[in-house]
């Protein structure tokens, strides 16, 4: 250890650091959502559907415009056994003073009795190559349970969510890999909101 501390100070006066790192919001005041990758099941009808050539993924988050919560690019539809990688990572500000609306939105999800309201919904969308010819079409949905994150106190690291068909939500057509750093902020929101309820 003495070697290490000696090392850290050696000649550091010759190096000028432009600025200290900016103070970043605490983990209890932000969340990070990452759409990592996507694969379709070998038997999924979408693989054979020539009208689907490229896909992107989006989710809705309270006041955020879709342009900020959809993957910035559409990627070629994955082939059987292939995974396509977006690595689309977004940090959402959940400042307790400035972003009460977003915190309420998350609290409502945590509290939802209806299971369809209790999760973050990701939509896989087919992006037609010829934009004039066809509309974007929803190809599948994946759901991330927020309650589990609160309950376990653990962030989600590259978890595979089932993608289900919009026509029949019992039919699994693929897997969407996502990460979610939100355990700390969900805990903070739940505490804050339930305190309000009982005070």
């Amino acid at each position, binding site marked *: *250890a003495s070697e290490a501390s000696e*090392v850290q100070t050696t000649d*550091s006066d010759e*190096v000028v*650091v432009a600025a*200290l*790192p*900016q103070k*970043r919001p605490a983990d209890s005041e932000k969340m990070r959502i990452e759409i990592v990758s996507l694969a379709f099941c070998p038997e999924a009808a979408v693989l054979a559907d020539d009208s689907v050539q490229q896909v992107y993924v989006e989710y809705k988050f309270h006041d955020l415009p879709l342009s900020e919560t959809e993957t910035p690019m559409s990627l070629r539809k994955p082939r059987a056994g292939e995974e396509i*990688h977006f690595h689309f990572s977004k940090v959402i500000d959940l400042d307790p003073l400035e972003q009460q609306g977003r915190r309420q939105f998350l609290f409502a999800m945590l509290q939802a009795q209806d299971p369809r309201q209790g999760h973050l919904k990701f939509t896989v969308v087919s992006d037609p190559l010829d934009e004039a010819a066809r509309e974007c079409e929803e190809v599948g949905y994946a759901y991330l349970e927020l309650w589990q994150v609160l309950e376990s106190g653990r962030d989600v690291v590259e978890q595979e969510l089932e993608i289900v068909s919009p026509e029949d939500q019992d039919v699994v057509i693929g897997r969407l890999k996502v990460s979610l750093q939100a355990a700390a902020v969900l805990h903070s929101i739940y505490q804050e909101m339930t305190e309000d309820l009982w005070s």
Partner: protein
Amino acid sequence: MGEPETPVPDSGAVFTFGKTKFAENMPSKFWFKNDIPMYLSCGDEHTAVVTGNNKLYMFGSNNWGQLGLGSRAAVKKPTCVKALKPEKVQLAACGRNHTLVLTAVGNVYAAGGNNEGQLGLGDTEERNTFHRISFFTSQHNIKQLSAGSNTSAALSEDGRLFMWGDNSEGQIGLNNVINVCVPHQVNFGKPISWISCGYYHSAFITMDGELYTFGEAESGKLGLPKELLINHRTPQLVAGIPEKVLQVACGGDHTAVLTEKAVYTFGLGQFGQLGLGTFIFETSEPKVIEQIKHQKITYISCGENHTALITDIGLMYTFGDGRHGKLGLGLENFANQFFPIVCSEFLRFTVQLVACGGCQTLVFASPRINVVGGSDFNQ
């Protein structure tokens, strides 16, 4: 709020992106008092900077002693390797977990991980200080070093190539051995002008401008047709590139090639590291990056899963795996980029050096003078 930023001096600054260990892995920058960077190299998670005053500064992960500073503790600030001060350091090459250094008298030193003999010291024991590779003397006249995942290379002025370390995939060009712990000349009929070690593959350019690849054959990263892959342990000509080749850079599973006319890429592009768009995730056939055909590219660098290009007017393009912010395109919101994207941070700078590593990118750039909004603005 952060501290008010000190303006970058006219002599420039080193900009850091991704998991560098510097500045808590946030995009940041630093510079030297009375000295400037001349050469940058990145390993998987460590970085070397060689300065104009021939000093070597190291920082980053240090699990294997790859910083050569006498410990295995990670180092968060560029730290001078004092032990090498008596000799002028000229070049450094960071492999995945080891480091090679060339000094002005022609000595080659190595530190770090050594499980395949990549330190060239005759054994497989790791070192946390720089040890001289006795094989090399001033007579070898070394002009370039390169290091991969447990592989090492040194190239002489007269075109002789020496390699050592891991040969499990034939990536140091020897046919019958798993690894070698001392430098070994790669016997090849023609003099060689450039070497690049990727993670498990390697490539060199002959003085007449031909590209040869060898090592791991998977995912198209050798740029060779299927029928030639059986001989992947021997350097083979990449015939798919018609022009004279100037530079090659090998990444984790991809290869980028700069010719007189264009930039070609091949190999795996699942994260966009080929820069060939959102429909090509793998190719064994070298393909031109059409998007930047109108630009004159002067330098290319490949990290494990990303690529950076410098243009003749000092702009920088990046593409590939966007995780950790290593593409230099934002503070906290990232995505993979499948086409070359100009790094807007450097529109006001001239990019002079770039090095891509496993999870980071280092850039040396100096402020542009005589641009609108610059010093002329007030006149």
